[in-house]
């Protein structure tokens, strides 16, 4: 009898829930071309790691973007509209990125995603949040994954960084062209993930042959002992081999400290990928200044420590005022630059802002935008590749990045079989006060 009552109660309760849900439910508006835009505001969104291990390195990105948008808002906004940035933390977790990006689209109803950070995270989030079907632009993705430039797979993304294969190809060309480095043995130590795998593909594409199989290590799996073992083994090679490191900065630090321990700092020429050579971090992690001195790395930005650079100077000023207490570094530079590109894209799309209009504006005018990057922007009707080149620099004992050989040489290329060529590109100078006027 009691059980029957329970069953009855269950049915009644369920009916009540259903009724309640019907009353409370809000059926969201259909995704439209102008979602997130009002006469006075534009709502943008970003999902990026703010907590966890990756958060340590990249949490500054959304803050820097917001600082720049605040600066633009204080100077009248874009066509009279103020920009708000909704920032969600995904902790570099694929699952969180998928839900957070979906939330940006469905709940926060943002106009576009900007500066999404991370390859695996955004790759899944892009599909889970249905950005393609909803025609939501994903601007200037902070990832070197070459796929984001593929319009067929990701019809609404615009890559924000040069790709890892480009970087590897430029490095290969650099080694080949350098009479000291070219004849030496060369080795690759790479993280067993998209950095490493894309990097290996790039070197292969460039026809570069390493003297041994690449040493791949799992994320979090390169202990100092293993790094020492690996270096000790490579040290058997004659001459002064080139050691290419394709991983994160803490790994570069682990390897450099292993070299210090084994007195091998002068045995190798270290060539670190752009992701893995943040000098401030290297020094903070206890790598000796004398070891950092001479490490070669690739970059497409000016050095954030270079106070003579007009972009760095302007961004530093904005950072001091709108991003209080956050020291200016390469990550802040990257965030500000993405924000500046976004503002130009919004301006180029005109007063009647639509999602399609925004994407068309980047396709047609994106290559003319002013940017801190020293490599050209390659947006066009057929290309979603952002930057397409690198220059090689050498860190000094103070952790500043100076052009290799004293003269800055920019190499441009593509992610596939195209040649690597030295470029004479000169970037546009910064608009007055860093406020775009395109």
């Amino acid at each position, binding site marked *: 009898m009691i059980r029957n009552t329970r069953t009855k109660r269950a049915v009644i309760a*369920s009916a009540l829930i259903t009724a309640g849900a019907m009353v409370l439910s809000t059926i969201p508006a259909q995704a439209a071309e102008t979602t997130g835009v009002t006469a006075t505001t534009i709502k943008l969104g970003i999902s990026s790691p*703010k*907590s966890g291990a990756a958060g340590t390195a990249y949490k500054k990105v959304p803050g820097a973007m917001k600082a720049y948008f605040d600066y633009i808002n204080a100077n009248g906004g874009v066509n009279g509209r103020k920009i708000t940035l909704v920032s969600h933390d995904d902790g570099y977790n694929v699952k*969180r990125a998928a839900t957070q990006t979906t939330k940006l689209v469905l709940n926060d109803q943002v106009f576009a995603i900007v500066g999404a950070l991370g390859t695996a995270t955004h790759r899944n989030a892009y*599909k889970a949040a249905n950005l393609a079907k909803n025609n939501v632009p994903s601007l200037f993705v902070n990832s070197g994954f070459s796929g984001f430039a593929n319009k067929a797979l990701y019809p609404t993304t615009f890559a924000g960084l040069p790709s890892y294969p480009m970087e590897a190809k430029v490095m290969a060309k650099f080694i080949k062209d350098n009479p000291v480095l070219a004849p030496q043995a060369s080795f690759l130590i790479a993280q067993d993930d998209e950095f490493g795998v894309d990097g290996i593909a790039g070197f292969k594409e460039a026809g570069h042959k390493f003297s041994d199989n690449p040493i791949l290590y799992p994320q979090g799996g390169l202990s100092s002992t293993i790094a020492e073992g690996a270096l000790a083994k490579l040290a058997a090679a004659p001459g002064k081999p080139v050691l290419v490191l394709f991983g994160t900065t803490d790994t570069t630090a682990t390897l450099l400290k292993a070299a210090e321990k084994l007195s091998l700092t002068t045995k190798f020429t270290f060539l670190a990928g752009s992701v893995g050579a943040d000098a401030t971090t290297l020094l903070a992690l206890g790598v000796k200044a004398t070891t950092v001195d001479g490490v070669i790395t690739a970059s497409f930005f000016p050095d954030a420590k270079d106070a003579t650079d007009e972009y760095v100077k302007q961004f530093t000023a904005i950072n001091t005022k709108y991003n209080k207490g956050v020291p200016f570094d390469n990550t802040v530079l990257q965030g500000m630059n993405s924000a500046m590109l976004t503002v130009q894209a919004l301006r180029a799309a005109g007063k009647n802002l639509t999602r399609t209009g925004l994407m068309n504006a980047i396709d047609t005018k994106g290559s003319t935008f002013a940017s801190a990057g020293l490599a050209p922007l390659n947006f066009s009707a057929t290309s979603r590749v952002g930057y397409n080149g690198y220059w090689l620099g050498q860190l000094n004992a103070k952790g500043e990045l100076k052009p290799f050989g004293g003269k800055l040489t920019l190499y441009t290329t593509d992610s596939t079989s195209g040649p690597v060529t030295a470029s004479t590109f000169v970037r546009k100078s910064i608009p007055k006060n860093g406020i775009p006027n395109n």
Partner: protein
Amino acid sequence: MLKHSKSKHSKKIHSSIDSPRKRLFLFILGGWLLLILSNQVGEFSLYQGAFVATYAVGIASIILLTGYSGQLSLGHGALMAVGAYAGALTINSLQWHPVVALIMATLVAGLFGLLLGGAVARFSGPYLAGTTLALAIALPSLANQFPILGGEQGLAFDVGASPARFGDDFSPYKWFFWIATLAALIIIWFVANIAASRFGRTFRAMRDNPIAAQLCGVNVARQKVTAFAISSGVAGLSGGLLVMLITGVSPSVFPLSLSLLLLSGAVVTGLYNLKGVILGGLVLVAIPEIAESLVTRIGGSENVANSLPGFLVSALLILAVMFTPNGPEHIFKRKH
């Protein structure tokens, strides 16, 4: 609102689990109500609801293993990964229907569990815990060794658009929700049946007093392997559902923290009853959201913001162990 009523609802359904026919009826009723509900709530709620169902399946697999047969696994994330990859391969290489892929996810993970369980299920408490923990860190990094698994990039897991007969405005999230909810209902019904069967009684006897069970003629070793295999299969389904929701499978989807998260969910649910799995799933989905909105609300320094979600999950876990060690229903029920 939704959270509260849903959990109560599930409790009602399960509290009268006694006869198989009534149980089937109630599950069908529950499924019907959930499908009606799916027409009434926002898309994002549907998406989150699908995650709730996915976690509920994962938690059910842990309850089956730990609650019913007394084996502690710290590596269920690895078993989920097995199911997820099996499902993805089914879709990508064979182009079979996604539903078949989910069934394959369950079967392959179950088979894997059978083989693994054959080796490890006889290990007692901490030894099994250690082995499964090692598995959880070892297995995802192995995926990079086999090109067929797509390396770090992994494989796509695309269930495709909803069938045309549901109409054009049938959103992908509703489709996810339907698949995940129905899969969850079916598998939890299945697990509930096992728990109520002779099997389930044997499991419990084994858990409560292995020596007595052995004396009564229970083949403890074989039963443990069986429990491990079934639990693995259920975990595999959960893994398949998870990667369906995030549209792809790669090693980074299955960190060690996933295994521990599921265990937390199971403890919050109350380890030895199936009645609260949906509550457990809700908690796992809700906590990060609550943490994030708390951070936005109170501001707080960056360090606080970074550490709050972890803090909340951990605190809840400890509170659950301390105050409702046998599940939340003790709060609601006066007498057992």
